[in-house]
């Protein structure tokens, strides 16, 4: 008897091995039309909810739909860890995830893999939302995800110092450079963004290219655009390090170190996300800029600059068995009322145009009107299924140029070759 038991265990284990070995990394061919069917309880999966923005929405939904309850499943806070959780799950075609909160830059990759349900544009109020934000959810002319929140860069500057010198906030990088002597007189550094070798560098590089009127990729993310604007943008950043209008510490800056540098009074100008605004207005012994700073849209080279878009999109898994409920929940969670509550709670930039003019929100987050101005010209990062390869190549080349290991035009040339190769994978 025990022997037979052991035998069965053994056979079971062997079977398990064989079965798992067969489930190779073959790609899902799911997806398909907008026919979302199936209702019932669903799971909503997103990165760790650090500001507590989901429970209220889910609570409201669950009260109204007791038979279609939503359960929140939180993934780690780090974007890489989230992506690998999604990828592992979706490659296995699991129906565990129904609604997924995905980073804007993953949309194309997930859509091309056949992991997302195509959304019916007619069912969503996209006309009232920021076009660039909605565009982050599009791939090959179809809509795959709805923006939940978005994000754009701002120029933070020391208003007290500029006022004293009777100067206005710079609208172009030339004006910004011309103001740098003020930083010197005040024993501080002039300008910084995020230049460490990570996703933030891609954002800052993209913005410098867009500031010169260019873009990273074209033809639906299959070819490099770059060209002269990229050389101009990258030269500005590389020269910053060479000539000192960007502090040499800048090469190690991610969002937080650059914010701390600005708040400790070491920077005259800082490119960062809106979250810095309320932090820099807090009373804190380490904060030296309370009431002394203001914000402006990002500068360009001839006119206004253009921000890269961040943010979170909601999408429905192609393998969900309750896509009907999932689509309805996305509509609900991203509607204007809930978006307003989310913005009020987090200060994240809304995807709804109207919310930028909402007096209540503006009182709480005075940066909204300035951000709105920037959002009109904001651009998504390249929407390509090979985004990870694209951003790695950008970081490689831009970093080499900022470190002075490559001339800006050489780096742009090399990057063009790399991006074309990546895009040609089809």
């Amino acid at each position, binding site marked *: 008897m025990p022997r037979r038991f052991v035998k069965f265990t*053994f056979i079971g284990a062997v079977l398990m*091995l064989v079965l798992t070995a067969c489930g190779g*990394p073959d790609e899902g061919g799911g997806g398909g039309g907008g026919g979302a069917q199936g209702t019932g309880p669903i799971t909503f999966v997103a990165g760790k909810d650090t500001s507590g923005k989901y429970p209220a929405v889910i609570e409201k939904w669950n009260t109204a739909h007791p038979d279609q309850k939503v359960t929140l499943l939180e993934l780690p806070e780090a974007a890489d860890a989230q992506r690998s959780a999604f990828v592992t799950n979706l490659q296995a075609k699991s129906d565990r995830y129904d609604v997924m909160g995905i980073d804007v830059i993953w949309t194309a990759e997930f859509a091309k893999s056949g992991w997302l349900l195509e959304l019916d544009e007619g069912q969503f109020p996209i006309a009232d939302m920021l076009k660039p934000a909605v565009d982050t959810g599009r791939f090959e002319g179809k809509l795959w995800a709805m923006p939940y929140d978005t994000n754009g860069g701002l120029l933070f500057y020391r208003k007290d110092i500029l006022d004293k010198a009777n100067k206005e906030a710079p609208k172009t990088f030339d004006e910004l450079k011309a103001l740098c002597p003020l930083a010197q007189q005040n024993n501080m550094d002039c300008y910084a963004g995020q230049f*460490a*070798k990570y996703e933030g560098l891609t954002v800052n590089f993209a913005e410098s290219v867009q500031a010169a009127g260019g873009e990273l990729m074209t033809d639906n993310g299959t070819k490099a655009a770059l060209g002269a604007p990229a050389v101009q943008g990258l030269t500005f950043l590389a020269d910053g390090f060479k000539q000192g209008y960007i502090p040499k510490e800048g090469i*190690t800056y991610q969002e937080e*170190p650059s914010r701390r540098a600005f708040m400790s009074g070491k920077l005259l100008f800082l490119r960062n996300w809106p979250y810095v605004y309320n932090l820099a207005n807090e009373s804190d012994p380490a904060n030296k800029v309370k009431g002394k700073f203001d914000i402006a849209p990002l500068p360009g080279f001839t006119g206004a600059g253009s921000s890269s878009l961040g943010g979170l999109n909601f999408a429905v898994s192609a393998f969900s068995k309750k896509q009907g409920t999932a689509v309805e929940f996305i509509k609900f969670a991203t509607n204007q009322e809930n978006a307003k509550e989310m913005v009020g709670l987090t200060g994240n930039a809304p995807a709804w145009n109207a919310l930028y003019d909402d007096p209540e929100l503006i009182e709480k987050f005075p940066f909204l009107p300035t951000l709105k101005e920037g959002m009109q010209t904001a651009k998504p990062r390249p929407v390509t299924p090979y985004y*990870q390869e694209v951003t*790695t190549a950008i970081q490689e080349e831009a970093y080499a140029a900022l*470190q002075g290991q490559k001339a800006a035009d050489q780096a742009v040339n090399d990057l063009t070759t790399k991006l074309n190769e990546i895009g040609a994978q089809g």
Partner: protein
Amino acid sequence: MTVATETVRPERVRRRGGPTRTSEGRRAEARLALWLLLPAGIVLAVIIAYPVVRALWLSLHSDARFGTSEFVGLDNYIRAFTGSGSEAFWQAFWFTTQLTIVTMFFELVIGFGMALIMNKAFKGRGLVRASVLVPWAIPTAVAARLWEWNFQPDGVVNQVLGTDILWTAGHWSSFWAIVIADVWKTAPFIALLVLAGLQIIPDEVYEAAKVDGATALQSFRRITLPLVKSAVIVAVLFRMLDVLRIFDLPFILTNGANQTETLSTLSYKESIQQLHPSYGSTLSTITFIYIILAAFLVNSLARADVVKASGGR
């Protein structure tokens, strides 16, 4: 990621009453042994053999993100050694190797020193022992975050040294940043193992040496070193296996910037970030083989040394 298993060859026990036992009984015993070993065998197969074989299998296939993956033989290996991936691979290979040699050297010297101190009887020894071990008790990822702060341009390290170094912005400064953080974290581990080795050396040996008129240096070289050697070899092996697959520190401190990618961060980036599971498996298989070879080499060198030393006396 890799697990070193040591198989112990059971010495065939010669039974005095061998022939008198029935072969049937012995066979039954062998069968029972087989069944008793089976659960452990299954567990090992599932958690060790399967991933290794699977990685090997994957490494012989192409990566097709949106198509089907095909059998490509050794193409992935050729790509890593001489093809389009060779620059990144060899950079990671040499960086990991340099890192291993340099960190092991400092850890051994400092750890040995710590162990010698902890082995002496003095007031407050317990406190010293406990405080020396604190870094070892901190998880590596936490330690890496801590050192990330310390190495920031306005961080503790620059303040204390009075320098203005951008630690994570250059190749060699990054290298030393990783070395310092790793030595800080794991020298106590070496100290612990060496201390265990020191404590089994009986005091009588030292007393006898003293009576014979040996100096402190002589008794260290002739008694302490040879007797603690096996503990040191174990420590070296452990650390070597660890550093060859170092991940957390470089990943958090530099994220591979300025040619500081290690074999493990490179495999991770290929398989998880770029979603190239086959090429990523190739890299981790190479790492796996490299570690086995390195362990084998050190082990046999150390053994030869021990044999020579004992034969010479």
